[in-house]
């Protein structure tokens, strides 16, 4: 009988019920999309920020000072260099295990056959190291620049191409010179000239697209700079900064001994920088975390925005439900009055109406969830260009939100039900 009546309501008030389901579906889909994106992209982007890209650069002391004074673009030679033979020491510092990747850089100004200038950068690609600790590490551009899009060919493999002069060419330069994989490029350095074979063409989306990347020694040979490097990029896992770290970053000398020890033995980016400076002669190591930090901040703000949208959509849904359910109950007031007149208690009537609405909410919620999962993919692809995995946590969260919003939205209608007097509605006065 109960279900016959619930069913009857759906048949008779299907338009209203559809509207209620639609309202709930709308709210649920927004909540699903926002929560999915929030829970998934947040993690993903944070992981990416940690996993890729350098967060510390090391440059010669003088170069750093000059850079600061004259704001000279990085990469331009200032006559002072770091020493290649000290590179291994980076893996001997206190926080060596937190150094996941690093690569040295040397840039040489060279001339192409047509007389135009080109920057040839020497670095490591998949540089293999046997560390004094017995550990082995493959470090270099292949992982440090993993976001490069390889348009043609593949990453240069240092280990198999040891005796060949291979190069990675930026997509802009390759277009200009009409270069393809396997083609030779001839460059003239200040001391020597060289002919490289194109191993791969990359799109980095920046200045690097106009440059040539070659193994470290090839670039050094062009300018006769054996054993010299311009800079080192280091990717390290770090602990988020706190007050102590900020104070130390300004001047480690200002710390008390115990503060200094705490700081030195924590993987703050500033303490790792400090330790790198200790092992690399005449160097300045500094954090390039600002980029990552501001990205993290934007992400946080985006998450806040999404949370706000979720809350607003839920409030909107609650208001919509409130209107629709109240209208539905009002339309049925004489029917409900009659039920009360023939002996239905408040609990029975409320139960009936809430059952109808909860069933509607479940249907609307499920549809909304599916649509919202789709939304999440669209948002993921267009905004964050990554697909979104729906975290299992989203399902109970959305379910709880839907039930809560439905119940809150139904409150005024339930109040009306409780106060509805059969005598008021049954005798047409």
């Amino acid at each position, binding site marked *: 009988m109960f279900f016959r009546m619930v069913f009857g309501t759906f048949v008779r008030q299907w338009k209203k019920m559809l509207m209620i389901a639609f309202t709930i579906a709308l709210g649920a889909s927004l909540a699903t999309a926002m929560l999915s994106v929030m829970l998934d992209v947040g993690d993903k982007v944070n992981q990416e920020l940690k996993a890729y890209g350098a967060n510390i650069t090391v440059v010669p002391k003088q170069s750093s000072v000059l850079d600061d004074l004259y704001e000279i673009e990085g990469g331009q030679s200032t006559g002072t260099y770091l020493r290649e033979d000290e590179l291994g020491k980076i893996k001997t510092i206190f926080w060596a295990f937190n150094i996941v990747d690093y690569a040295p850089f040397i840039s040489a100004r060279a001339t192409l056959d047509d007389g135009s200038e080109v920057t040839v950068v020497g670095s490591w690609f998949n540089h293999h190291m046997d560390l004094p600790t017995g550990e082995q590490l493959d470090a270099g551009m292949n992982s440090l620049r993993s976001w490069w899009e390889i348009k043609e060919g593949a990453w240069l493999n240092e280990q198999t191409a040891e005796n060949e002069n291979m190069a990675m060419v930026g997509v802009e330069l390759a277009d200009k010179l009409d270069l393809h994989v396997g083609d030779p490029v001839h460059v003239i350095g200040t001391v020597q000239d060289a002919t490289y074979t194109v191993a791969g063409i990359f799109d980095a989306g920046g200045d690097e697209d106009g440059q040539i990347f070659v193994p470290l020694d090839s670039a050094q040979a062009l300018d006769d700079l054996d054993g010299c490097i311009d800079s080192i990029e280091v990717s390290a896992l770090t602990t988020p900064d706190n007050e102590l770290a900020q104070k130390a970053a300004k001047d480690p000398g200002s710390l008390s001994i115990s503060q200094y020890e705490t700081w030195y033995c924590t993987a703050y980016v500033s303490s790792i920088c400090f330790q790198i400076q200790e092992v690399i002669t005449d160097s300045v190591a500094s954090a390039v975390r600002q980029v990552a930090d501001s990205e993290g901040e934007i992400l946080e703000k985006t998450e806040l925005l999404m949370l706000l949208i979720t809350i607003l959509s839920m409030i909107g849904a609650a208001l919509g439900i409130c209107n629709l359910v109240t209208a539905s109950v009002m339309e049925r007031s004489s029917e409900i009055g009659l039920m009360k007149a*023939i002996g*239905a208690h408040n609990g029975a009537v409320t139960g009936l109406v809430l059952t109808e609405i909860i069933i509607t909410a479940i249907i609307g919620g499920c549809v909304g969830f599916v649509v919202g999962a789709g939304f999440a993919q669209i948002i993921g692809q267009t905004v964050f260009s990554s697909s979104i995995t729906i975290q299992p946590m989203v399902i109970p969260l959305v379910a709880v939100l839907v039930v809560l919003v439905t119940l809150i939205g139904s409150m005024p209608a339930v109040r009306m039900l409780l106060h509805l*007097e059969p*005598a008021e509605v049954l*005798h047409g006065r």
Partner: protein
Amino acid sequence: MSLLELKNVYKIYGDLHALDDVNLKVEKGEWLAIMGPSGSGKSTMMNIIGCMDKPSKGEVLLDGVNIAAESAKNLTNIRRDKIGLIFQQFHLVNYLTAVENVMLAQYYHSIPDEKEALEALERVGLADRAKHLPSQLSGGEQQRVCVARALINHPEIILADEPTGNLDDANEEIVVELFRKLHEEGTTLIVVTHDPEVAETAQRMVVLRNGKISKETVNENFTGHIRFH
């Protein structure tokens, strides 16, 4: 002891006395008609007797229990167990069939029993209309479904507020005939009407005016059959 007794009952809205010191006794098995012009307080009295409203002052004894002092929850139970209601506007649930409408009263009373519900429909001559929706029934047929619904739980009193107000003469006669049968079976009937022909079929008639009982007559030649003038 009377089945129903109203003692000095008042119902006051602001300074309007919808019921003004009403005293009335109804014996078990009696068939009573209540007459009066519109606004005289007939529905107000029916609501109080039917446990859907409480008097402002006074006592209403039903089976010796003062229902004026009961809680809303108890009133619902008393109404469910002792009273069958019939309204002018029928008030059938329009997505339930005739038999389901009867079963609805069983559902809120105890448990639905389709066989019993069909028997009730048979008593009002609607066995062949059991599976019809209210919209597929004539006004008279709808009111007969309401009678079946009112009697399904064997109430002590059947209260009918203008039961024939929306019916033509032929259907009026059929409904009155049903009342006569119920009366013969010993059911107490209180029928509100402003139609003298319907009122004259009852054993006793009370006339309300401005919330007061202005006249009480006993029908000397009571037959239970309607006579059209």
